[in-house]
Structures are given as structure tokens and as C-alpha cells.
């Protein structure tokens, strides 16, 4: 009995801190989602699942959900592939490795408030450097068909280093001998990668995948600055919609319901990931 208590002391600080700070906000959001609360009109009453029922009929919600799912799927896939590629590329010794690794982290290091505006200017149809280099006048952010993809590109640029640095660390702890042993056994580079590297990388890939998906699904800053959710709500993600409902229209009940939906979606996706990549947690 005593031994078990002693072991739990290790996770105690984390759990206590997390509970103290986040239990109240979490309960607050859940309870609010069951109420009709409009600050301006001093309306605050319990309405059960009304907010959720309204949500199911709300076109703007479905539009936001679709934008969010599309954004997340494309963005995370690109980030994982590029991040993995960069991590593998940088895994071998070469000159100035330290500096290159620092350079690769630059996009992640730039503050989001700056990088979003920076991309807004790069994508500018008239004086943006992208159109200048391409010699064309594409309306990246003003065309409903292009805008979401521009946002995805800006987000992928910013967050690929996050994946890359996690995978780089993951690759570091794979003993080189394993790969060498496989090669002696006759495996090619792809074989080594598939049967040695990838399985050992799975825990780190899982972490990168989960956290990137969490963040992409909740994306707010880059979209809000680049396009404000437009044009014509073509880039409005769930977080942007929730933000507008909460802080512009001051409907705290409905805004909280939207947040709970994000929470549930992300929770569902995480469980899916863990089940798919299960059996690896030691």
C-alpha cells in the first residue's frame, strides 16, 4: 500500500497544477454550453441541449466544421511528411549541422502575431513578394477558392519545424547499430527505414501527430489575421467562428457549445490516433 502511494507522488504535482488551473475553466465552459447566456441582454438561463440542437441546424457551423477538417487534414499531412523528410535529411553528419538545425527552427521561432501578418504581406496581390517572384497577379487571399490554401501554406511553413525537431530528437535515440545490422542482413535504405526506423519512431510520431492535430483543429491566429475568416467565410474555422460568437456577438452560451464541439472532435481524433498506433506505448 505504502509503495503505491509513494509512486503516485511523481505525477501528483502535474495533476494538482492542471486541476487547479483548468478544472474551473472546463466546468465553466461545459455549464455555459447548456445555458442561453447573452451578456448584453442580461439573459442567463438553463436551456439544456438547445444550443447543440441549434448548432446542428446552423449552416455556418457546418461550413466552419468543413473548413476546419479540410485545413487540419491537409495541413497536418503536409507537416508530418515535410517534418519527417527534414528530420531524416538532417540526421546524417555534415558541416554546420548545428546552425542548419537552428535555421530550420526559424519559422517556429517567429511570433505568430508577426508571421501571420508577414504572410499577409507576402501574399498581397499587388506588392507581395510572392506575386513579384512568380510574375503573376494571383489574388491569393481574396479568392474564396484560394484563401484556405494560402492559410494552409502559411501554417505549414510555420509549424513544420515543430514536427521536424520532435522527429529529429526521436531519430537521435535510435541506436545506429540497429540500422547497420539490418543493412548487413541485406536490407536497402527503404527497408531499413520501414522496418527499423519507423517502428522505433512511432511514439514520437504519435506525439507530433496528436499535438499538431490538436493545434490545427483549434487554429485561430493565422486565419484571423490573414483573412478574418473570409472571403465569404471560406476560411472560417471553428475557432474563428467561436471567437466571433463569444467576443463579437457576446453569446456566451452558444460560443461555449461550439468550443465543446471542438473539444469532442479533438478528443475523438486523439482516441482514434492512439488506437491506430497502439501497442507501441511501452
Amino acid at each position: 500500500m505504502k509503495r503505491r502511494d509513494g509512486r503516485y507522488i511523481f505525477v501528483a504535482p502535474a495533476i494538482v497544477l492542471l486541476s487547479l488551473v483548468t478544472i474551473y475553466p472546463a466546468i465553466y465552459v461545459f455549464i455555459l454550453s447548456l445555458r442561453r447566456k447573452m451578456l448584453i441582454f442580461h439573459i442567463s438561463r438553463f436551456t439544456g441541449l438547445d444550443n447543440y440542437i441549434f448548432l446542428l441546424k446552423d449552416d455556418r457551423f457546418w461550413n466552419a466544421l468543413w473548413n476546419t477538417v479540410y485545413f487540419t487534414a491537409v495541413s497536418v499531412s503536409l507537416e508530418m511528411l515535410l517534418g519527417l523528410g527534414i528530420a531524416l535529411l538532417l540526421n546524417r553528419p555534415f558541416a554546420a549541422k548545428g546552425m542548419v538545425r537552428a535555421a530550420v527552427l526559424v519559422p517556429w521561432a517567429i511570433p505568430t502575431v508577426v508571421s501571420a501578418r508577414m504572410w499577409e504581406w507576402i501574399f498581397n496581390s499587388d506588392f507581395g513578394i510572392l506575386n513579384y517572384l512568380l510574375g503573376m497577379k494571383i489574388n491569393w487571399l481574396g479568392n474564396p477558392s484560394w484563401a484556405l490554401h494560402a492559410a494552409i501554406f502559411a501554417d505549414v511553413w510555420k509549424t513544420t519545424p515543430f514536427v521536424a525537431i520532435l522527429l529529429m530528437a526521436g531519430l537521435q535515440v535510435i541506436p545506429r547499430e540497429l540500422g547497420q545490422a539490418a543493412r548487413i542482413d541485406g536490407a536497402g535504405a527503404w527497408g531499413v527505414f520501414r522496418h527499423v526506423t519507423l517502428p522505433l519512431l512511432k511514439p514520437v510520431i504519435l506525439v507530433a501527430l496528436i499535438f499538431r492535430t490538436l493545434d490545427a483543429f483549434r487554429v485561430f491566429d493565422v486565419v484571423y489575421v490573414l483573412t478574418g475568416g473570409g472571403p465569404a467565410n471560406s476560411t472560417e474555422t471553428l475557432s474563428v467562428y467561436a471567437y466571433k460568437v463569444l467576443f463579437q456577438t457576446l453569446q456566451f452560451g452558444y460560443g461555449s457549445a461550439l468550443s465543446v464541439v471542438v473539444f469532442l472532435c479533438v478528443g475523438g481524433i486523439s482516441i482514434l490516433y492512439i488506437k491506430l498506433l497502439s501497442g507501441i506505448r511501452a
Partner: protein
Amino acid sequence: MIILLCLLIFPGCSDRETSEKAHGTVLVFKHGKIAGDPGPLRRLLARFERENPGIEVSDETLPASSDAQHQFYVINLEAGSADFDVMGLDVIWVPEFARAGWLRETDRLMPQKERDDFFPGPVEAVTYRGKAWAVPWYIDAGVLYYRKDLLDRYGFKPPGTWQELVFESQYVTAMEKGLYGFVWQGKQYEGLVCNVLEFLRSNGGGVLSNGRVVIDSPANRFALGFMRDLIVKYRVTPPLVTTADEESTRHIFGNGRALFMRNWPYAWNIFTVENSQVRGRVGVAPLPAFPGGRSSPTLGGWQLGINRCSRHPEAAERFVRFMTSPSSQKYLALTIGYKPTRKSLYRDHELLARQPFIAGLYGILMNARSRPVTPYYMMMTQVLQPEFSAALTGVRKPAEALGSVARQTGHIMGIEQ
């Protein structure tokens, strides 16, 4: 853990009470960031402190973005915060904040005879249910910038109607290379609503009329369709306008790449600077209208409001009265370019001598019309923005968009039931 928490608390407490005993009353003035030198505002505050011994003013800046400030105020005022006394309010928030019970009434600060000295637009914007809830501090309105040199070259005058503007743009851009005709703000944000209303109202239309939703009207459909046609049919406006905001268009016009621009008066000072490419070549005129309509610039500008939970309401009132007094407004106009909300200052010799530009603004500001003055406006604009954007980008036909706006707005107006 509890001990740790206590240790955390003690260094962190901001002790307003004791510091106030040392200095007297401390008023906290929260406002958006003022571009440029913060010196002039501080000097003005110092003057207030000299004239009111015992009161100290602490000014705290918020990000200039209207949305960021709105978010800040909502979070703080809903929590009943007394951390600030006087706040800068965007012209569209006043009815909302008043209805929410977050503001202290300011009728005392704007007695009737004084009220007449303010422009009618801002006065309407700060009045809710017959009472005043803020005092207009500085004013903004949409104006038409044009390239004087290019219009002169081809013998044109600033256009009086939108159709004239189209004609002049097409003519001049056919002659000159690398020039856009007319740039304005079409990104999906509040600025879009300002722009669209300038077209709708100049055609006799609008959003609300005596509390009724009248947005889906033939006049509005025509005006909105006309805006879309500027891009696709007449081709005087580049497609990039659907993602343009104030600064992008200001840069484009300032680089000499546009004939006409709709923007706020702030850009004027930037165009008159030493190394501006359009120095001496820019003129400002009232916005055009449709035939038979009236130029209807949208009202902008900021007001000063008092937090209802403020612990020093009398001192706050004195402060607001001071900051909106003729001398303060004149000082701010001369130093940081805030346009005064008092009509009398537009006849002030010194101000006119130093800033002749504002003489031309008087007529425009008298015509400036506020967006619908209703606590529902913030909800309404969240409906207006995407639908207007959809009409401009061709995702929806104007009739469809306006019909959708009418339906949703009708629903919003009934939301209190």
C-alpha cells in the same frame, strides 16, 4: 502546495489601495495605441493633473485593433472590473455597452447647448434610449482620395456620382499604364460594412429604418450589384480589393498605383510626408453618390466612456470633460491629427492655418452617418460581413445575399424574446 500558492500571491498583488493613499486618486485611462509619438498625449494628461491636484492619471494602452479592444473590455467589464475608469469606445459599441449596463450615463457632460456643438453623427451614435452614454472624442469618416494631377491632365473634376467615377477611371486607366482605377476596402471585416453602406445609403437604401429591417430592397440590390460590377464588369477595381484593408489600399495609392481610393482621413498626413511618391498630387473629396442620392460617408471615430464600476466617477467625469473640451481637442488635432468632434473648431483660425485640410472635411463630417445604432449591431455585423463578402466575390448573387441578411437580421432583432 498551498504554501506555494500563498507565496505566488504575495509578490503579485497590485496594491492600488495603498498607492492611492500616497498619491490621491489614480484614474486609469484605457485606450487604443496612438500611432507615433506618445509625448503629446502625456503632456495633455499632465496638464489635467496640474489643473486637478489630487488626481493622477495612468494611461494604459491596448492594441489598436478594434476587435482586440472589444475582447478586452468584454472580459473585464463582464467580470465587474474596477481596474480602469475611463475607456476609449469605438463608435459601434456604445449602444451595446450601454444596454449591458457597463457604462455610466454622460448626460451631465453633454448639456443641450453643448450638444449642439458636436457633429450630429457621433451624438446619435452615443445616444441610446434617450440618454447619452459616452462623449465623442474624435471623429472619422470615409472620404474619396484622388490623383489631382491625373484628373487635371485629362480635364476631369472629382466625380459626383459613382457612374462618373467609373467613367473617369476607365478613361484614365486606358491612357496611363500600371494604374488601378478605384481601390477600397473589401476584406471580410468591419471596414467592408463601412464601404458597402456608403454605396447602399447613397442610393437611398440602408439596413434599418425605424427599427424595421429594410436591407432587402431593389435599391440595395442595385448598389451591391454595382460594387461587384466595379470588379468584374467595369473592371476599374482590381480583384485584390476583396482582401484589402486600410493599409493595403493606402500603400497602393501611396505608391501611385491607383487613381481613386476610399479611405479614412488618416492617410492624408502620410501622403504629404517628405519622401511620399504622391506628395502634392493628392486631393480629397466627398464620396460620390448614385444619381438622386446623397453622399453618405460612414462614421468612424472613438468616444470616451466611464466604467460603471469605477471607484472614482466624479473624477472620471472631470477627466472626460477635460479630454473632450475644445482646447484638448484642438491640441490633439494639432499634435496627433485626431479630428475634433466639435463643429466650432472647424472655424478656428489657428487650426485652419496649420491644417487647411480639415476645412474640406467639415461638410463630409456633417454628412457622416453612423452604422445602425442598436445594441444588436455587433451581431448584425457578423451577418453583414460574410454576406457582403459573398456578394463581392461572386459566391452569391446580391439578391440572394441581401435576402439572407434580411432573414438573419430579422431573427437577431427578435432575439430578446
